């Protein structure tokens, strides 16, 4: 059994900003190679891995959809050797000043997002948050060197090293959603050792943070009978203590709402209870904010379940997760998939 921490750290070691997932895709490919029978890349860059089931052909298909793309930034201009930036995906500008980043220019340049002193900003900025358009990136090089190495349109990724906290917690950037890719990897590993009737298609999808482009296109190609979407969900933490927030490190979020097929929700709930895997209902009264929004409406429609790994400080470079919840998610998926028989599909119905 793979040790989760090194696997996860490896998954955090490469960028993979939305639309530029190449570096992380290669790392996932390496992890999935020994666990799958087929591995290919979709026309827009998602990684598809097939682990064949042992049931009689034609076999039913379950999709595990985990997005691999990361939020980040892009260079919009260069002035006096400092770079202006814009965001890729949703970033609260208030967490940016002082963040270590890498500018992916003609070579990778470590730098920092900096907040210029007040007298260099418009008066209305006052002592309030500084808008992203006024923040700069400093890579410690002189203007002439920057001009040679950096161009408008270059990517800027977060560079905070992961930190191990007490109680098997890990803090870092891009845990959204590499923790789910890691959970899917644990699931594939577990299923490799046991019999399962259905074919398992694991997908590391692209562009979730911007257009859901990967989640819309991979299921179209794979045509799964059911889909499990794994993403992070909101853990309780400072300033985050309402119904949307799940306890940290105390179990998986089981999505409940219009993006989720009720029979699949029930099936997961039953398995979780049987296996004594702790979970909390993750209430999603409207859209789930995950790949399920897209997967559900691909082709003639696909029944979806959403599993959430509770995460603190989402979309900051210190996102914090409990390793226990990642393992639980991998295990719950494996148990669910191992329980699937050719007859199961008929039970994913509307006879409530």
């Amino acid at each position, binding site marked *: 059994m793979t040790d989760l921490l090194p696997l996860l750290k490896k998954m955090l070691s490469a960028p993979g900003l939305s639309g530029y997932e190449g570096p992380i895709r290669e790392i996932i490919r390496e992890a999935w190679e020994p666990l799958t029978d087929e591995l290919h890349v979709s026309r827009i860059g998602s990684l598809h891995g097939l682990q064949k089931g042992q049931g009689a052909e034609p076999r039913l298909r379950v999709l595990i959809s985990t997005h691999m793309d990361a939020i980040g930034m892009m260079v919009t201009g260069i002035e006096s050797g400092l770079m202006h930036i814009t965001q890729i995906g949703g970033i609260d500008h208030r967490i940016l000043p002082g963040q270590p980043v890498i500018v992916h220019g003609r070579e990778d340049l470590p730098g920092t997002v900096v907040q210029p002193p007040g007298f260099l900003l418009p008066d209305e900025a006052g002592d309030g948050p500084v808008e992203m358009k006024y923040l700069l990136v400093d890579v*410690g090089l002189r203007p002439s060197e920057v001009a040679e190495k950096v161009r408008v349109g270059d990517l800027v990724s977060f560079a905070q090293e992961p*930190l191990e906290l*007490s109680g098997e917690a890990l803090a870092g950037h891009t845990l959204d959603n590499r923790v789910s890719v890691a959970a899917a990897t644990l699931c594939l590993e577990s299923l490799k050792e046991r019999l399962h009737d259905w074919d398992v298609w694991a997908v590391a999808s692209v562009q979730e943070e911007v257009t859901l482009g990967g989640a819309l296109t991979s299921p179209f190609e794979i045509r799964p009978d059911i889909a499990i979407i794994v993403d992070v969900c909101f853990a309780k933490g400072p300033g985050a203590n309402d119904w949307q927030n799940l306890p*940290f490190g105390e179990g998986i979020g089981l999505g409940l709402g219009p993006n989720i097929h009720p029979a699949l929700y029930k099936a997961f709930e039953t398995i979780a209870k049987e296996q004594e895997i702790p979970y909390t209902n993750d209430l999603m009264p409207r859209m789930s904010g995950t790949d399920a929004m897209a997967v559900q409406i691909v082709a003639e429609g696909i029944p979806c379940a959403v599993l959430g790994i509770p995460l603190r400080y989402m979309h900051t470079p210190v996102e914090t997760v409990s390793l226990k919840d990642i393992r639980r998610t991998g295990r719950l998926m494996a148990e669910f998939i191992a329980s699937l028989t050719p007859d199961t599909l008929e039970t994913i119905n509307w006879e409530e």
Partner: protein
Amino acid sequence: MTTKLDATAGKVPEIGPSQLDLLEKLCNATAVSGDEHEVRQIVLEEIRSIADDLKIDALGNVLAARSGQGENRVRVMLAAHMDEIGFMIVKKHDDDLFEFERVGGIDERQLPGKPVLVGRDHIPGVIGAKPIHMTTAKERKNKIELSSLRIDLGPDIGSKVKPGDRATFATRFEVLGPSIRAKALDNRLGVATLIELLKHAPDNIDLLAAFTVQEEVGLRGAGVAAYAFDPDMAIAVDSTPAYDLPHWDTDDQNVQYNTRLDAGPAIYVMDRATIADLRLVALLTETGDHEGIPYQRRQPGGGGTDAGAIHKSRSGIPSISVSVPSRYTHTAAGIARLDDWANTLHLLHAALSRVTPDLLAGERRD
């Protein structure tokens, strides 16, 4: 009188790999004002064998003297503060998250989303922020208040951390091309410079090195150090902001840059705490001109260094400050140029070598 005949005394100090290693060690150490232990230990280790007289005073200042040779030696005090801005844990909440207070001048806007190290064991933690998904556009127009921030050390921290523990940003020292990026460059640059000057002390003076405490909370260590040394003159060695960034409106010029990177050591003429002694301004600028060492005059204005406390000590001590310019002072990660640091060291060493009793003899002519 002791005469120390070692290899480095009097020679021109250089910045090489071992000086960089020392600076790295100093920057990565934690020494929040009032708890300077870690840096003090590094300083003691470095200077124990070369100081003629060494003591730690009542506040925790390290006072090291190195005597020169010959008659009429001027007693020159050099002060570099060891402390840095940081945090103190003030309360453990029921959810195992820790409330904290700032020590020294830190902009609240620099806090969200930062890793920190807590206590003497450097226990890692993070200052998180609410997910953007749960904020409103209106909310994002206001800064995230300190009172809403917590340090998160993970769910199983138990009693390893408690109120009273100090914390700093977790930034690790790094060389980026011609620059250094680190936390606490203010004032580990000064501490490292002073260690080198002590190791290479010129013979014409008695060098009285004060590695001071509590500069960031009101220049508290330097005054008592000056009293104890009773020097003829003093130089505070510090790091000062370089605000040399472009104005948001490109038609406007930045006229308040304070100092600029790549322009050499910043010689103070006036800040909010001190009007530099004009004889010492002349000593430093003339040294730079004579030796061909680049320097800049720091724009007169705000800020203050240990010189603010030193010049008012006893019956008055002619004082000045010299700083290594650095960007983004008092944030998680400052940036300074290696060349500026080297030139600061060279300028100070050359200036000290030129100090004679004549410099301060007779009545001061303003």
